[in-house]
C-alpha cells in the first residue's frame, strides 16, 4: 500500500506550506529551505499517516553555478507504508551550513560526516563532524586550505602531493 502523494503534501503542509514539488518518473521530491528542515523531518517521521521512520541516505549535489550552489538530498523510507520520499534542501554560499538531523534519525551521523567530507557542507548540531574517508588534515599543500573531492571545481586527478604514498623500499631505491 503505497502512500498517496496528497497525504504527504497534507502532512508537510501542516508545518510548512510553501514547499516545492519535483516529480520524475513517479518519484516524488519535496524542496524545503534549511531553516524548516528539522520541523518537516520530525513531522514526517512522527506523524502516523506518513511514518517515514528510516533514513536511507544523505548526499549532496554541487550545481557549481547559481545562487544556491549546493543542495543536500535526504532519502526517506516508510516501513509501514512501504514508500519512499526525497527531500531536497537548497543551500547558498560556497561553504554552506545545514541543520543536522542526527537528533531525528541516528543513522544520519555517518551520512552527514561523509557529505561533509566530500562537499564541505557543515551540519549544525552534529555531535562529531569530522572527515570520514579522507585524512583529517586533507588540504591543499600550497595554500593550506581544506579540499573537498566531490566538488565540481576539484581537479579529477586530485591535487598533487596532497595524499602521501609510502616510500619505495630502500633496498631497491637506487634503481
Amino acid at each position, binding site marked *: 500500500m503505497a502512500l498517496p502523494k496528497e497525504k504527504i503534501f497534507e502532512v508537510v503542509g501542516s508545518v510548512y506550506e510553501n514547499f516545492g514539488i519535483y516529480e520524475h518518473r513517479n518519484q516524488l521530491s519535496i524542496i524545503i529551505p534549511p531553516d524548516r528542515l528539522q520541523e518537516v523531518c520530525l513531522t514526517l517521521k512522527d506523524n502516523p499517516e506518513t511514518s517515514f521512520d528510516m533514513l536511507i541516505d544523505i548526499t549532496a549535489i554541487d550545481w557549481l553555478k547559481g545562487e544556491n550552489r549546493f543542495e543536500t538530498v535526504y532519502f526517506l523510507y516508510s516501513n509501514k507504508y512501504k514508500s519512499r520520499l526525497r527531500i531536497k534542501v537548497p543551500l547558498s554560499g560556497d561553504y554552506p551550513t545545514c541543520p543536522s538531523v542526527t537528533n531525528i534519525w541516528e543513522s544520519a551521523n555517518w551520512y552527514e560526516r561523509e557529505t561533509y567530507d566530500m562537499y564541505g557542507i557543515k551540519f549544525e548540531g552534529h555531535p562529531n563532524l569530522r572527515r570520514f574517508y579522507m585524512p583529517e588534515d586533507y588540504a591543499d599543500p600550497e595554500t593550506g586550505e581544506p579540499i573537498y573531492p566531490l566538488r565540481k571545481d576539484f581537479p*579529477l586527478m586530485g591535487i598533487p602531493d596532497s595524499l*602521501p*604514498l609510502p616510500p619505495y*623500499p630502500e633496498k*631497491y631505491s637506487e634503481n
Partner: protein
Amino acid sequence: MGLDKVIEKQGFITTSIEAILKWAQKNSVWPMPLGISCCGIEMMAFASSRFDVARFGSEVFRMTPRQSDLLLVAGTVTYKMAWVVRKIYDQMPDPKWVVSMGVCASTGGMFRSYSVVQGIDKFLPVDAYISGCPPRPEAVIKALMTIQEKIKKQHKPDIFNFGKDISKTPKQENIDIF
C-alpha cells in the same frame, strides 16, 4: 627426466647446492593473496580445482605474509590501502617477488581518479604485470611461470646467509610486461 634411471644405475647424482635450492624455490612459490577488490575472485579461481595452480607448486595460499614468497596484489590500490600493501610487503621474508594483477594494480585502470594509486610500481618493485580486467586465471598462471623463469635465470640464492637479508630480488629494469 630419467633422473630415477640415473639414480638406479649409479646410486647418486652430482649437482650444485645452488641449483638444488633454485629448483626447490622455483617449484614452491607460495603466494600471499592480497585480493583487495574484484580481481580477488579470479585469483581464487586460479587456486581452485579447475585451473589448479598446484600443478606449479603454488597451491598453498598462506594467509600470513611471513610464510609467503610472492605478493599477489589483486585489485585496486587506493592511497589509503597503499600503506597496508607496503606493510605486508615489508613483513614478507626475503627473497620475495611481486605480481601486479589486473589493470587496476598495474596502472590504476579505469579508476583515473584522485584516490587511486596509478600503478603500484610507484611504491613497490614489481616483477610481473598482468593485463586484463579481470585477467583470466590462465594469465595469472603465465605470471607465475614468468616468476619461476626469473628465479631460474636471475635469482642467486645465498646459502650462507639463510634467514637474514638474502634479497636478490630482480631489479626494476627486468620487469616483464605481457
